[in-house]
């Protein structure tokens, strides 16, 4: 037997193997391509029984640019949807849908999910409150790198404000809406101005998560909270490294100044609320009198001549 006879067989096996290796990897990409044939159409939505809608349009460029787009395929997170038509969605409401979706995140993002579980939001979720945010309330898994952008940072107060500016939602939990008091304060002004005039630069001023924490956010009354009275000065010093020992009260704790909350600020407000109109009225009156006397003199002089 000549070994030459084996050459085509060996070659055949090698070529077949190479072809298998070469095509096996794009096979996954091929997967995404299939999904994106439909899911790039703008305005595609899934309507839930509660009449709430979920956008199912994916921007392939933003998805591809994110860590998710580079490491995962559609089927990694949506294994059931490999079948077309897709199996029926079991969630009845948006919250239920988001909670199921968040379960997928846990398979990789264990740290964030654990931190969230210990947070005031995670606790409220276990207690079954409807308004609690889940992963996808704040994060878009199809545009995961957005969290690293200046836009995300500059708009974070608005994101938290979705609930924390709403007095109806806040009242249910015995909380005050804190969004507007942030916006009216030093940090909020700077952040707003960055958003408006320098949207590509991240605001250097503190945003919600800088003081309260993100995934691990706790109630301000919780001794483990970064804004608990015992910890707040240390939290200020994260940015204001040489802050003096009385620095914490420079922050009015999202309270609108009044006779109880930050009374000094309130008295100064009252002082100017009185002084400005009084001064303007007094100066304005004397000016009008002066003009009146001049006009009277002119008329009298014209009458004489």
């Amino acid at each position, binding site marked *: 037997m000549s070994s030459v006879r084996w050459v085509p067989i060996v070659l055949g096996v090698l070529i077949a193997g190479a072809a298998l290796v070469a095509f096996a990897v794009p096979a996954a990409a091929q997967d995404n391509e299939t999904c994106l044939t439909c899911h790039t159409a703008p305005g595609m939505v899934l309507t839930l029984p509660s009449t709430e809608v979920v956008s199912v349009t994916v921007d392939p460029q933003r998805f591809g640019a994110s860590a998710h787009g580079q490491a995962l395929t559609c089927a990694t997170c949506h294994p059931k949807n490999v079948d077309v038509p897709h199996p029926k969605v079991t969630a009845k409401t948006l919250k239920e849908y988001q909670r199921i979706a968040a379960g997928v995140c846990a398979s990789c993002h264990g740290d964030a999910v654990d931190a969230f579980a210990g947070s005031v939001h995670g606790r409220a979720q276990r207690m079954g409150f409807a308004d609690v945010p889940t992963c996808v309330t704040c994060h878009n898994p199809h545009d995961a790198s957005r969290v690293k952008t200046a836009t995300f940072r500059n708009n974070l107060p608005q994101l938290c404000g979705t609930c924390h500016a709403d007095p109806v939602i806040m009242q249910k939990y015995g909380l005050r809406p804190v969004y507007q008091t942030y916006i009216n*304060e030093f940090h909020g002004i700077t952040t707003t101005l960055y958003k408006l005039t320098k949207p590509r630069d991240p605001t250097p001023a503190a945003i919600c998560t800088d003081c309260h924490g993100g995934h691990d956010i706790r109630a301000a009354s919780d001794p483990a909270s970064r804004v608990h009275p015992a910890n707040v000065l240390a939290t200020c010093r994260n940015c204001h490294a040489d802050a003096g020992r009385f*620095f914490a009260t420079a922050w009015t704790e999202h309270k609108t100044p009044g006779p109880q909350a930050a009374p000094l600020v309130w008295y100064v407000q009252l002082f100017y609320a009185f002084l400005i109109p009084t001064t303007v009225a007094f100066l304005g009156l*004397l000016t009008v009198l002066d003009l009146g006397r001049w006009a009277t003199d002119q008329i009298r002089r014209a009458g004489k001549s």
Partner: protein
Amino acid sequence: MSMPGAMVRRFTLAQRIEHFVLILSFNMLAFTGLPQKYFQTGWAERIIQLLGGIERTRFIHRTFALILIAEALWHIGAMLAARRAGREHGDMAVNFGDFRRVLGDIAFLLGLRREKPAFARYDYRQKLEYWAVVWGTVVMATSGLIMWFPETVARYLPGVIVPASRVAHGGEALLAILSVIIWHFYNAHFRPDIFPMDRAMWSGEIPLERLRHDHRAEYERVVGAEEPPAS
């Protein structure tokens, strides 16, 4: 009798330069400060964008704030020096007579008396404005510095003074700007007999005739008591 068109010296060159520095710093501070007070408006956004962002706006604001503070210190020094040299006689001091003359002037303006009160070198309008600038500069500089160095301030004083300073800074700024628009613009520019401007702060001189009319006590001091009273 004095010559028609005779002029009396009113401000030294140094005082006129001081006033010019005040014009410059006041306007620049208002221009860079108001957009910070009304940060949510569209015009504020455009001005801050024009200036290159909020940090650049604050930098310009603080630069002119330092110029204004330096000028205020210069003014105090110049006043003390003038007093020591005997060139300063407390012309800006507010006294009981000023309150009487305010009422007298109101009576005159209402047509209840024929004569304007005999004002001294500076009338109550000018004294009010001068002391408003002194008060305003003290409030603005103090509250501004507190906001500029909150970490240091909070070493010695309650932190609540920082947000209180922000309210005071914004309130006092609005008060100052409105007062300048109503009071200073009228008395130094739009008063019909001096429109378009009182040239005294430009040339340093005031016509003797206007001094007789507007500052009769000072006129009599300058010219001498033999001058017959105005008819």
